[in-house]
């Protein structure tokens, strides 16, 4: 009897935790998309008005981007500063591949940033600024969609986790 109760509690706890994790990803995505836009805005300002060297510009974008999103820019800046013949595009692509696992961003969101990797530090100032504005606009669209998804699915994921666990317990008893 005690074993059954323990198992039931374990199943319920695990499925509830899974539901909370999924709901948490839905909640974090709009926030991180906004962080990404802020970081890109800072980067754009640094490029447009400051004409700052790219590693420093990326570092200040990382400071503006919060912990999860900032890590992408920080890793890019570190890779660039380390030298070794990395182009900014390579550094950014590698940083994206490394750090994207710790964010709630989807491949579609990351591909918007990856498209920037081609032009960052490789073309003229006006061209880079145009690409950064375009990326920010696309990210704003994604953010609106992510907020809509959050409103619809966050609570659902939480409830489904708990209820799915309850259903499993009922079936196994």
């Amino acid at each position, binding site marked *: 009897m005690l074993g059954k109760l323990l198992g039931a509690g374990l199943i319920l706890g695990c499925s509830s935790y899974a539901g909370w994790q999924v709901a948490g990803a839905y909640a974090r995505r709009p926030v991180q998309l906004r962080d990404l836009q802020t970081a890109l805005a800072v980067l754009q300002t640094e490029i447009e008005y400051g004409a700052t060297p790219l590693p420093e510009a990326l570092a200040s974008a990382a400071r503006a981007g919060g912990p999860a999103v900032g890590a992408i820019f920080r890793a890019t800046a570190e890779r660039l500063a380390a030298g070794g013949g990395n182009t900014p595009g390579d550094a950014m692509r590698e940083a994206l591949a490394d750090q994207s696992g710790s964010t709630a961003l989807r491949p579609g969101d990351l591909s918007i940033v990856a498209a920037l990797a081609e032009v960052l530090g490789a073309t003229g100032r006006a061209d880079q600024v145009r690409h950064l504005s375009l990326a920010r606009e696309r990210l704003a669209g994604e953010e609106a969609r992510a907020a809509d998804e959050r409103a*619809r*699915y966050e*609570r*659902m994921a939480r*409830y*489904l986790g708990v*209820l*799915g666990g*309850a*259903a499993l317990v*009922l*079936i196994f*008893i």
Partner: protein
Amino acid sequence: MDVSLLFKIAGVGFVVMVMATMLKQAGKDEQGQMLTLVGVLLVLTMVVRLLGNFFTLVQSTFGMQ
């Protein structure tokens, strides 16, 4: 007669009903219908087992082995 199976069926029905309502509210009507179908099949397997017991009982009562 074992009543616990009845409670189990009632519980599964209740949980599936609430889950289907949640899915429908979130705009995932198809998944909700699929879940209801799964719940019905689940309960049906339990009921079929009971029916099987019932028929063997009838057979043994009237000596129709």
